[in-house]
């Protein structure tokens, strides 16, 4: 009867192109060879590396007493893998999907951050996969799951993700080699030794911790800070159900910022008309508070100019581009205001004349054909945008304002009518606001979709005007890109 080798270790590494999976595989082999083990690594590069995912496979074993070399397999075999290291959450999921990780045997080390696939990114609404389901499966189908946000760890240490993974592998103690040997492998490779060691340390420490998903920001309801704010909030609290107040507070803050307190009062009046028909748990009012606030704060030239010129915005940009002290940052916006947007922003009489395409329009048109590079860190363009944002006081007289209020009222009257007989259908109706977003062509397409659904829906006999119909219509509109 042949003897079996029980001290072989098989390691599968799932990484995306450019994440250093090959470097990690080499480090592991060097550690093992240093301890007298036979190590083999294989991979399938090629087009898979151009942003696709790749599996690297490493086997570690020892020659037998007679000095015979072990026969090594060339790819991970489902059910026969001791360690899986995955550089991203869905790659962790893929390791489980392909059966590389098995309960009772595999140490599964996976990052919990996401690098979204093109199908998730290009969806018109929200196409993201469900992370929690993957985490649960990873726990069920492994002996031990070590999961943390390796991208955040990489950022914290200014290192690379392969060093974090290598540290986590050492920290998992799934390999029978001391920590020093791992660190020596990094030193021996002679590339970016110091930052790799820092990353290694971070990975090693985090491997001892609990499973952690990337942190997501929470949005507590804003507290009123002014007298007007307190008045508005107490009016809302008196008129609207408690359950909706979280979204209402956000909505009030947004609309006061967008226009003024009177505009926020209009918001509350409109909401009350919907809330009258609502019933516990008041989802309709809550969602109406969200979508009405979003619609009422529609994106016009004034709003964009306002947001682009705030001090907080400049700080956010510096943070996002990781500007360091002493670095000068200049910011150029890619704007493409069209004559139409200008006309819509102007007071109705002038705006309409411009939009009707007469002589004025023909004279102005050449100035609006091209996209503009707007340098908001320079004085000239900053002042132009600042002046545009000051048009806020005239907004109520603009063409766009008039049009949007008409659309909002038409939308709300259908919602109120529906709510009186079918709260669920009213809720789905309210959610149609999601379709109307963006600028220029995107905005027009969304509005067209909304209007098409609206007229088709209203033409239906009353008994067919259901939540399910609306839900499907919305999904369909999002599905066609």
């Amino acid at each position, binding site marked *: 009867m042949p003897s*079996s080798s029980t001290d072989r270790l098989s390691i599968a590494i799932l990484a995306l192109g450019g994440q250093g999976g090959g470097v990690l595989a080499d480090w592991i082999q060097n550690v093992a060879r240093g301890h007298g083990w036979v190590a083999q690594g294989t991979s399938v590069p090629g087009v898979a590396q151009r942003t696709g995912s790749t599996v690297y496979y490493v086997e570690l074993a020892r020659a037998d007493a007679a000095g015979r070399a072990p026969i090594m397999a060339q790819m991970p075999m489902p059910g026969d893998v001791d360690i899986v290291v995955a550089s991203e959450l869905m790659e962790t999921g893929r390791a489980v999907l392909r059966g590389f990780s098995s309960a009772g045997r595999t140490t599964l080390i996976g990052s919990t951050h996401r690098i*979204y696939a093109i199908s998730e990114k290009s969806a018109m609404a929200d196409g993201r996969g469900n992370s929690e389901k993957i985490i649960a499966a990873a726990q069920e189908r492994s002996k031990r799951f070590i999961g943390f946000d390796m991208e955040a760890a990489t950022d914290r240490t200014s290192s690379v993700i392969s060093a974090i993974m290598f540290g986590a592998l050492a920290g998992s103690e799934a390999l029978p080699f001391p920590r020093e040997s791992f660190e020596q492998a990094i030193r021996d490779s002679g590339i970016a030794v110091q930052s790799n060691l820092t990353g290694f340390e971070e990975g090693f420490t985090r491997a001892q911790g609990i499973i952690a998903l990337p942190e997501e920001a929470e949005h507590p309801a804003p507290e009123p800070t002014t007298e007007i704010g307190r008045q508005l909030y107490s009016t809302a609290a008196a008129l609207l159900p408690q359950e909706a107040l979280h979204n209402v507070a956000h909505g009030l803050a947004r609309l006061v910022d967008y226009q003024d307190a009177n505009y926020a009062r209009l918001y509350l009046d409109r909401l009350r008309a919907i809330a009258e028909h609502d019933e516990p748990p008041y989802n309709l009012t809550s969602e109406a508070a969200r979508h009405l606030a979003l619609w009422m704060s529609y994106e016009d030239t004034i709003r964009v100019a306002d947001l682009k010129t705030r001090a907080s915005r400049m700080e956010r940009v510096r943070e996002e581009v990781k500007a360091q002290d002493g670095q000068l940052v200049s910011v150029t916006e890619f704007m493409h205001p069209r004559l139409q947007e200008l006309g819509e922003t102007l007071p109705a009489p002038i705006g309409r004349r411009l939009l009707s395409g007469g002589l004025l329009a023909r004279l102005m048109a050449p100035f609006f054909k091209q996209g503009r590079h707007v340098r908001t*860190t320079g004085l000239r363009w900053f002042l132009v945008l600042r002046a545009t944002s000051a048009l806020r006081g005239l907004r109520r007289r603009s063409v766009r304002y008039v049009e949007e209020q008409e659309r909002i009222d038409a939308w709300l009257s259908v919602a109120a009518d529906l709510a009186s007989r079918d709260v669920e259908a009213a809720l789905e109706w309210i959610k149609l606001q999601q379709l109307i977003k963006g600028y220029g062509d995107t905005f027009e397409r969304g509005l067209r979709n909304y209007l098409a659904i609206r007229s088709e829906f209203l033409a239906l006999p009353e008994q067919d005007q259901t939540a399910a119909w609306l839900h499907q219509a919305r999904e369909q509109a999002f599905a066609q890109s």
Partner: protein
Amino acid sequence: MAERSFKHEVKKLTAGEGETFTGEGILAVTKALLQSGVAYIGGYQGSPISHLMDVFADANDLLEELDVHFEASASEATAAAMLAASVNYPLRGAVAWKSVVGTNVASDALSNVASGGVTGGAMIIVGEDYGEGSSIMQERTHAFAMKSQMWLLDPRPNLTSIVNAVEQGFQLSEASNTPVMLEMRVRSCHMTGSFIAKDNIRPAFTVSDAAENPTRDLDRIVLPPANFLHEVEKIEKRWPAGLAYVRDNKLNEWFGPDTHPSEIGIIVQGGLYNNCNRAMELLGLADAFGTSDIPLYCLNVTYPLIPEEVKEFCADKKAVLVLEEGQPEFIEHELNTLIRRAELDCKIIGKDMMPRAGEYSAQVIRAGLGKFLRRFAPDIAPAQESSDPLPAPVAQEIPQRPAGFCTGCPERPIFTAMKLLEREIGPTHISADIGCHLFSILPPFNLGNTTMGYGLGSAGASAFKPTGKRAIAIMGDGGFWHNGLTSGISNAVFNKDDTVNLVIDNGYSAATGGQDIPSSRAKNANRVTNNPIEKAVRGVGGQWVRTLTRTYDIKAMRDTLREAMLTKTKGPKVIVAQSECMLNKQRREKPLMRKALKDGQRVERERFGVDSETCTGDHSCIRLSGCPSLSIKPNPDPLRQHPVAHVDNSCVGCGLCGEVSHAAVLCPSFYKAKLVSNPGRWEKLRARISGAVIRFIQQRDDRKRLARAF
């Protein structure tokens, strides 16, 4: 400059007798060639052989030192034709390429060299791109070995066996005057391991010796009557000599006992031996070191089969399982013939129990072996395997990751422009080609109808003779020089095709790892580069040719494409779209930038960003770009729910997102941030002044806003 440098590793190639060589499979093959006294080497890049070509290129100094001639061939046909050097002279030569596609291209020359036969050892190293991660049609090189009668080696996948196969392959080739193919599977090319090295051998007879002493033998040329003689010689002389060499030198191997109580055995292709052993080990039929309970006949030479050996192995068995990857099952057919001729009563079990298609991993072999044992040796058969797949609701959350263009790739804007033009004039038939640009067929672009082979994009569109809309044919610079100039452009001129031909010129054979080609802008000490594509197109009679030197200029791209689609000029319209492969550009520029920063010089870096406050989460920008650095993140707005677009720090500032939002009138959310390190004094002063004024206004606005806030 190739994507990966082997400058460091090639030092290992100087290892001498008795030293342990540890490294990658392709490096081991290179070492084995030098140990065999090879006189010339050629080949064409393509996974999994690209790295072999890169190793050769990086080992140029060592090759010159040993008087070994190396050429980066223009195509596989060029490489195969090089083997002509071994026909009349005792020169050992090796050529390499990606198979089966490269073998297709090379087959004319291969047929000729196989017909006339060789004097010096001729070896063709084929990187068999079959199975997971493959980018080509799934076919077998085996068919070429059979039709042209070239011996096919498929050694066990460990470096010692592979190195031995190279050395013995040359001897086999010389003993039988027949070219030999060495099949390297993808995983073996990139597999690390060790072997004991020998000294490198300088060729006793060099290519310059041959050139100085030309000999001529009319019988080696494929022309009547010699071609008829060749066929007879193949059968009567070379075939028996080949069989004798393989048999006498025991190139095939036996493992396990001579017989098994259940009278069963296994015949396995050498390349599958390790997977087979792992499957047997997990079924308790072998140990981790290859000690087998079942007789095993390992074919390190998969063509030709050795009738005596087959007869001997099968004589006392009632059933033999054949592990032969890919289809058709040539070996299984041949085994059945040999068994009938030997009048044996042994069942050959192959594709009736093993899958007809796909890679034979250890898992697949275990399942097939289990089936085989349940029928022929139930007492040692494993129980039926049960599987426990991930439930569908979880599995469907895991998205596919199709390959795509790299961050900042200059090819992406070309397809964005095509997408924008498509909105104006509707869909067009698009004939695609081989190269990175083929990713256009995948999301988010979904552009391209067919691809017929490398450099064949234009030829693939030649049947579309439009009366209304023109077809678009795409070709890369790699494909253009490989054969696209003649079989595509010249053909289109000659036949008065009215197609629009887009030649994507990114300065390298980018998809295969950034090797230089004739139009490369790089200065290469060993090659002649900087031969403009436009000049070549005009040279074959192209009239309507436009060269665009910045593909990121979406408007120019779109307008030129539109002009090409609508112009009244007859004949092919050729657009050469140039911008350097970003992967290579970054690799060249990043170290320079780091150095400049270190030296305190003024350094500019650009990157893009998305304002999450103005982004409404529609993702139109992503559908027109697909850049890896343009992603999404949770919406920071408490009321909005759809994720917002987001540019991560891997952005290289190519500018495409901004150009797209302009050209497609998308949204005002994109911004370009220019970061200046170590700015000049004047520039600092200006920024300080405008910054102070802006901050003053902003602070006043903030105070007013707070006063009227919620």
